[in-house]
């Protein structure tokens, strides 16, 4: 039994192909990332960019859900939720940032190509970008955020892009836009926009090479080296009407529900890696000068137990969320408020506990916890960065409160 299998999850829900994929990914990332990172650290060109190609192009994550006749694998039944969770978990075990990017790509695919929600016209237009090239297609979202200027809002935060137009196409404008990832490298932006003259926001796809996109310099941030982020400007960026992915809350919620599944799995995968690190530490470290093995001390054992307990629960929650998305007939569509709120609760819970867990592991390992040599600190920085990009949990609580308490003015 692998150490990772100690954390039970509903394995029976995964198909043989899911298990094979997870197993292949586990072997791949161990060989190509984990074995090399002591030497290559977080080198983008030498380590992370080649892995993006392996994962997205060679393994085929970027074409997993697109229709077969467009070059995809058409793994587009709701059960793909399990595939996504188990795949991203394995990637995150090696690098949270790579998993973060995979979560973007797979959420977009799920929201556009899933059986029952298939947007054929848009798939025809966009899928070739993912399925025909030999380069990884990096997807970035532009979601509402705080603003220094008033403007159109979505749930209290401000839409960063304004679209004008309609049947003849859209013209997009926005300045100082902070994308969710990869402002430097994104090949496709998915922007939640206000639309002039319309009440509802729209999610519009913008190819990264569209005229009028200006990318700033990569800014420094806490973690997620795989995501070279920069603020961007949209100046009269024109896209065809077909690039409108969806309008209104339901589509946005559906996208975010799938996105939160990916992020949850990324959190759990990172935690499994942290478990492996503290396991090794606990097995081998001797303390108190009396030959006591670290894990045999009651204080440290109790804390390590709490760490394992929280990881186990986080993993169960993630697969539970996958189950909700995999069985819309039982739980409702991913775009329903019920599923969206559940996914919001789960992802925020996971990142809150993940922060707690990794802090405790660091404390157990003292200076080795923050020395790059031991690798733990990268998960600490990466997980915190994902949590920041996920958004303020205090604000997310308003969605939860609205749902459970029918608040009217939040």
């Amino acid at each position: 039994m692998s150490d990772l299998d100690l954390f039970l999850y509903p394995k029976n829900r995964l198909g043989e192909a899911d298990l094979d994929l997870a197993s292949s990914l586990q072997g791949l990332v161990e060989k190509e990332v984990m074995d090399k990172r002591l030497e290559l650290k977080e080198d983008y060109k030498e380590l992370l960019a080649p892995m993006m190609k392996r994962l997205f192009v060679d393994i085929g994550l970027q074409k997993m859900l697109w229709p077969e006749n467009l070059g995809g694998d058409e793994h587009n039944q709701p059960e793909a939720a399990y595939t996504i969770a188990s795949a991203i978990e394995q990637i995150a075990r090696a690098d949270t940032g790579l998993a973060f990017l995979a979560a973007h790509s797979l959420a977009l695919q799920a929201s556009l190509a899933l059986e029952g929600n298939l947007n054929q016209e848009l798939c025809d237009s966009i899928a070739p970008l993912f399925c025909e090239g030999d380069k990884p297609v990096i997807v970035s979202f532009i979601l509402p955020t705080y603003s220094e200027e008033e403007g159109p809002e979505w749930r209290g935060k401000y839409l960063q892009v304004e679209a004008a137009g309609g049947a003849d196409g859209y013209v997009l404008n926005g300045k100082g836009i902070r994308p969710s990832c990869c402002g430097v490298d994104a090949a496709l932006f998915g922007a939640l926009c206000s639309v002039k003259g319309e009440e509802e926001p729209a999610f519009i796809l913008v190819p990264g090479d569209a005229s009028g996109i200006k990318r700033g310099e990569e800014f420094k941030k806490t973690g997620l080296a795989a995501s070279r982020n920069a603020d961007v400007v949209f100046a009269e960026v024109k896209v065809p009407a077909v690039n409108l992915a969806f309008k209104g809350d339901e589509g946005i919620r559906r996208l975010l529900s799938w996105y939160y599944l990916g992020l949850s799995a990324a959190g759990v995968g990172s935690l499994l890696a942290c478990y492996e690190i503290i396991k090794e530490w606990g097995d081998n470290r001797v303390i108190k000068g009396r030959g006591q093995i670290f894990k045999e001390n009651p204080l440290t054992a109790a804390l390590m137990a709490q760490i394992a307990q929280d990881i186990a629960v986080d993993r169960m929650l993630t697969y539970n969320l996958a189950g909700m998305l995999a069985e819309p007939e039982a739980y409702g569509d991913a775009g329903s408020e019920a599923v969206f709120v559940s996914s919001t609760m789960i992802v925020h819970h996971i990142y809150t506990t993940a922060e707690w867990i990794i802090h405790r592991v660091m404390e157990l390992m003292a200076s080795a916890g923050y020395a790059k040599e031991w690798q733990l600190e990268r998960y600490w920085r990466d997980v915190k960065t994902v949590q920041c990009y996920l958004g303020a949990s205090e604000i997310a609580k308003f969605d939860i409160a609205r749902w459970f308490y029918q608040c009217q003015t939040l």
Partner: protein
Amino acid sequence: MRTIDDFSRPIEYLTPLGENIGEIFRGWVEKEVIPFRREFDEDWKDHSLILPPFKKLLGEYGIQRMLFPEDLGGWGLGHSDFLSVAAFRMFEEVARADSGMAVAFGVVFWPLLFIACEPHVNRRLCEEFAPMFCETTEPVFSALAMTEPQGGADIENVERLGGSTIQTTAVQDGDEWVINGHKLWPTNTGGVADLLAVVCTTDPASNDRNNIAIIFVPTDIPGVSQGDAYEKAGMAADKNGDIWFENVRVPLWYRALGPGGDSIYFGEVMSLGHMGTIAFTVGVLMNIYEKLLEFVNTKMFKGRPIKENDAVAGVLADFAATIEASRIIGYQCARMCDRPDLYGPRWTPEVVAKARAHRYFVADRGLEAIGKVMNLMEAYGADRDWDVEKHWRDIKMCQLWMGGKQLCQMEVARWFYECETL
């Protein structure tokens, strides 16, 4: 507009000298450190940005002379009854800009506590080392070499282990000590330190505290070698590395305070280290408050500055409360260290345990509060340009140094509950 100076301090503990120095430090960080600190992480190996402000502070302003007696060119703070409160203010101001610099700065004085503080001044060693610090305008760094590869926090755990795990040996040979061993992690190593205080044993495996020896070793003598600085998650201004001692010879009188004295006053070094850690944390919290204030005043949610949202205000209030309480605890800890007549000597297990309790309470609450602030700031919380994430990375290390969390808990439990076997 509120500022960091609106947070409370116990005014009755403050001294004119400490306050004047505090103002000087504030001016120094505003001009020499804050404008450059966002590049410090990439400067971790070279210190080409980090060293110049240290030269000004330590060398040109002469702060490195602070502890030595006045007749030796120092400022005589080692003889005062306000050293800790003054140090708290200085550390707080430096950490407001960069807690890595604050640690490196504080550790300049850490080993010197053994020889320059009343009531255990070692006049001969002060005379020996004062010129190194007082007769130059170049910065001079010290380090306290404790941790060893096999021991982790065992070295700091003097009360329980009595030095029995120390493997760095000091053997008397005529009128010299011959030192052999390997140390890890001291602040200001990685090629920085000019003077080391090395925790040795004169009788390996003995738990007789008389055999714990603190011996001063200049780094430029034969047999001392320093490895490269470690790469860490942050705190670039604090270089840490390996140090090897191979038949290093120093005079017998380079031992700080002799059998018994070295281990007794090791407790003083611990107490003041904890006090310093609180000050570093409070300095960081104060700067984050400044950044947060700007953020919540300018960023809007639902048409109003986000500070006007009740739920957000709850987080902001918790953060302010953390600073308010931490600062008061810190000054109280400093006062406790300054006034043995009121609180007992600062090297006793009682004061060490209380200082540990103060330190880990503040460090834990501080980190928790900073984590919530980063989350509230969303993507900007992880953005170097807002400075909060750097403080978060740096101050985590302060939480973990000097034995980490579990050792703190054991010492606190041992004293408050009179545990016998922990």
